[in-house]
């Protein structure tokens, strides 16, 4: 028993204390958070834009088409681009997108984290766009009509009234998307980014012991996910109760 404890302690020292290797994990965790956070922001921006374009087209496209003209042709083209983006992003694996971004599109870039933020952001945008579109559709049409009846045009009504309400509806889902993304960024190591997973793996490579660093990494992810899930639960209950 004593031996076993001594062994554990030695392992712990080797993997985390020696050479200050625990700092690798801290640095890696920071990188993971940075990528997940900024990718979510980027994803939200892309998502709002695409969701607005798509639901506007769904709502007004048909009647505009009847009227003809260049405007609707451009609008239809943009809508098709959005659909293409959604199809491609949701139809290919995240890792492949990341590899393409890193090794083809930003071939000469040295800013790995930035490329990762872009890749994950563009990826998240596609999923968030559909969440937002569902959110926009679930805002009561009376809200939209009230806005229009006061004299707001379509875009103003969306910006002042529909989109803020959509955000409230989708906020919990959005937070869950962030949690998913936090775990998904673990593939960033594929392009040499030292995120949390990569940091654990690097320790493993240095110390030739897999157990401690990998379990530590898993525990960190697990803890963060559990805490965030709890927070989302609280947020959800708050939103339901306040109803405004």
């Amino acid at each position: 028993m004593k031996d076993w404890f001594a062994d554990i302690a030695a392992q712990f020292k080797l993997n985390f204390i020696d050479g200050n290797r625990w700092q690798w994990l801290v640095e890696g965790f920071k990188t993971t958070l940075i990528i997940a956070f900024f990718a979510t922001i980027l994803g939200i921006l892309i998502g709002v834009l695409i969701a607005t374009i798509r639901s506007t087209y769904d709502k007004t496209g048909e009647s505009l088409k009847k009227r003809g003209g260049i405007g609707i042709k451009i609008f239809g083209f943009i809508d098709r681009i959005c659909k293409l983006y959604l199809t491609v992003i949701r139809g290919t694996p995240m890792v492949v997108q990341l590899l393409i971004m890193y090794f083809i599109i930003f071939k000469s870039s040295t800013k790995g984290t930035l490329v990762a933020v872009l890749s994950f952001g563009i990826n998240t945008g596609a999923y968030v766009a559909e969440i937002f579109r569902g959110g926009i559709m679930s805002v009561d049409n009376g809200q939209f009509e009230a806005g229009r009846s006061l004299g707001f045009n379509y875009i103003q009504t969306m910006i002042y009234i529909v989109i803020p309400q959509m955000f409230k509806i989708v906020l919990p889902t959005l937070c869950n998307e962030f949690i998913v993304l936090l775990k998904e960024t673990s593939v960033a190591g594929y392009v040499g980014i030292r995120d949390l997973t990569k940091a654990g793996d690097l320790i493993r490579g240095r110390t030739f012991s897999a157990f401690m660093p990998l379990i530590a990494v898993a525990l960190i992810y697990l803890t963060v996910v559990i805490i965030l899930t709890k927070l989302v639960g609280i947020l959800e209950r708050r939103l339901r109760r306040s109803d405004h």
Partner: protein
Amino acid sequence: MTTEKKALIKVDGLYKYFGDNHVLKGISAEIDAGEVVVVIGPSGSGKSTFLRCLNLLEEPTYGEVWLEDKLVTPVDPYLHPDIIELSKTYQSLFAAEKAKNSGRSDEEIKAELIAKIKSEDLLNEKHEGKAYKSLMKKIYNENYINVNLARQKIGMVFQQFNLFANLSIIDNITLAPMKLLKLSKTEAEERAKALLDRIGLADKAQAYPSQLSGGQKQRIAIVRALAMNPDVMLFDEPTSALDPEMVGEVLEVMKELAKEGMTMVVVTHEMGFAREVGTRVIFIDEGVIQEENTPDAFFSNPESPRLRDFLSKVL
């Protein structure tokens, strides 16, 4: 030269089809400044559709809506009936239809054809040439009012209140005046507070819609529309979603408004309101105006059997 008085709102030959459902079948009406026009009729007869066509929340299939001397319909002058009528497409279709000798009036055929041309997009000669386009633009500027501008002058109150759920009461009222009339925040809030005072809800300025009763919500919805200083107010069954004990407080606000000379078009089942404050009552059934009269004559001397039948059920 006579100075001809223009109606505030003029509706001319209004048709509205939802697919095969012919909801409005040729409604014409004039509403003068200061009138309180009450619209009644059975459920599904097209009252809401008529009201919503006035501010183009529904786009009429055919027919004109005027706000004073400007056309509100259609949004696109290319689809103006007069323009369509000039087209070769229309003329050949019309000739073919006439040749059938179906016994229908020219007016009826015209309505059908224009609806058909619009819904099936049969008009392919609409973008011919720059000169034509600039002429269209001129026609537009001289004759039309932008639909968003028109709506600023036409307030609307809905059955379901439709207060903006994401905004506090004060923000509900100040949003449109600030963004559309470019009032400063202070000016808009002063205006809002004066309106809230009038309906005795000044203490609710910071509350959110979900914290108010139905009657309170509807009174706020009324002053939200009033904050834009509209020329006319449309009410679509403003008390139908309310608990009975709250109907009175909303009708009271509406009566006040009428007394102050606000032009109003009110769809309602409140016959008492029609009698007391209406200057004219319109009975819509099967998509047409079956009868209209002053409240007194309307209720004491209904002429059409349909109206008599309807009144016997609701009174």
